[in-house]
């Protein structure tokens, strides 16, 4: 069983705000799922390379040809908060902090 603190730590890493009830449920469900997943420990992989992608592609390159990008107005159209032609975000750096 993973601890409640672990659940809270992982949620913080994932920037996921969970309610108390969600943390409780997550603790039970993640523990249950991890029990199944941990069976992989018994598989001998001592001489096996990891596979990140099944296709043998590397360094896909193309010519650096300028193209018209999505227009600024279209790119901003879905922003929840805007100020003129900019995204509006909460203050990140404050004076004195």
């Amino acid at each position: 069983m993973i601890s409640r603190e672990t659940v809270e730590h992982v949620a913080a890493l994932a920037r996921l705000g969970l309610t108390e009830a969600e943390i409780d449920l997550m603790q039970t469900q993640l523990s249950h799922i991890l029990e199944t997943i941990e069976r992989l420990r018994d598989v001998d992989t001592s001489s096996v390379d990891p596979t990140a992608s099944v296709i043998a592609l590397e360094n896909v390159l193309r010519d650096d040809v300028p193209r018209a990008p999505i227009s600024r107005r279209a790119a901003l159209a879905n922003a929840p908060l805007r100020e003129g032609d900019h995204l509006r975000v909460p203050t990140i750096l404050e004076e004195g902090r």
Partner: protein
Amino acid sequence: MELADRTISEVGSLLRSRTVTSRELTEACLARIERDGTRLNTFLASDAAAALAAAEAADAALADGDERPLLGIPYALKDIFVTRALDDAGDDLPGGLPTTAGSRILAGYRSPYASDAQERLDAAGGILLGKTNCDEFAMGSSNENSAYGAVRNPWDEATVPGGSSGGSSAAVAAGQAFFATGTDTGGSIRQPASLSGVVGMKPTYGRVSRYGMVAFASSLDQCGPFTRSVRDCALVLGALAGHDPRDATSVDVPVPDYAAALTGSVRGLRLGVPREYFVAGMEPGVEAAVRTAIDVLRDAGAEIVDVSLPSTDHGLATYYIIAPAEASANLARFDGVRYGYSAGDDDLLTNYLRSRGDGFGAEVKRRIMLGTYALSAGYYDAYYVKAQQVRTLIKDEFDRVLKDVDALLAPTSPSVAFPIGAKTDDPLLMYLNDACTLPVNIAGLPGISVPCGLSHGKPVGLQVIGRAFDESMVLRVADAYERAAGFADLRSPLSHA
């Protein structure tokens, strides 16, 4: 059989002989959507006027002798493919449809660009009817994880259609579209195809562009078609497949004429039956239908070979590390700042926590947590790297067996459609629905599900798995089976409602 329930191949001939018009086909689908769409909850967005206008343009092109195989055929896109809904000035395009990925966090999102799938199907002359419901971010096996409600199975409306592409499978099964797209990360095309009694194919990883597909697990996701026949599947795959420089994992290999591969014969082919796919807990009716399907192919002249894929049992654990790990990284983009739902909090960290906490549903949160855990300091090697190593074992086993046989035969899903709500309290029980499909994604191979009869009145699917980029062989075997088995005209009760 009514027009709306026919195959693309049939109505395509009728279009070219001027027996029916694209407008009539579109009206037939719209009438079914009008009659059953709200109840089945198949569509999340549609625009009948835009579809009818496109159909009239297709009718004009048909009159000019245009012979594109999908010209004038009405279809639907899973609502995980972005559809262009904004012009360059950022204003709404007439007929442009929103894209939600089944999530509240993308409610009302209007894409400034089109997915490769939309572009290719549009170029092929298809008539876009709308966007189909799906599990949130394609995470699910029942379509119950959609923020916009569950989809009902046309075969039995108390049951699920499968997932995550359940809106697409149900729409094709219910005569609401002649074909639809889906995405398959661990079975999300093949499993709903099986439960909904239609054909569904996951092509080889890299065969179809992922450009404009909302990302779930980028090393596993692949786009593919739902249709009412294997021949139709070959036609739609031909339109979707091909290299796209906008997706760096799209592979630049020639696209064969898939319809030409449908010889109708399996004589002389060696078809493997992996014994590990007949798992404990499989419904007897499913096993019986699949064993009978294998006999049909044997009687048609194929040599049936017993084979073993011993790492199959590790597929589920491998998948539930790799897929959530990739998902946790992909979904980091939802920050409540650039697009999507925002809690509007004045503090940046609180805004992240609340936007994501309120915007994502339970299953998506579970997978973000699982993936973040597996990638976090101290667990990365034990979980993520270990899973990537077992991925190698699984892939090597497939490659070795597929040197000796031309394709593999297996069940698609261990069960038929189950009642809505039956598995929602137990995530692990839900995950087991994909035990027979997810190893194929782990190995990146092509697989198809083709209807192979009924168990207690509900559809069962036969899965055919092939070598990488050998969709032609998979389609050939599935088509030969479909012709020999006599289930090609199987339609849901809604076809004669």
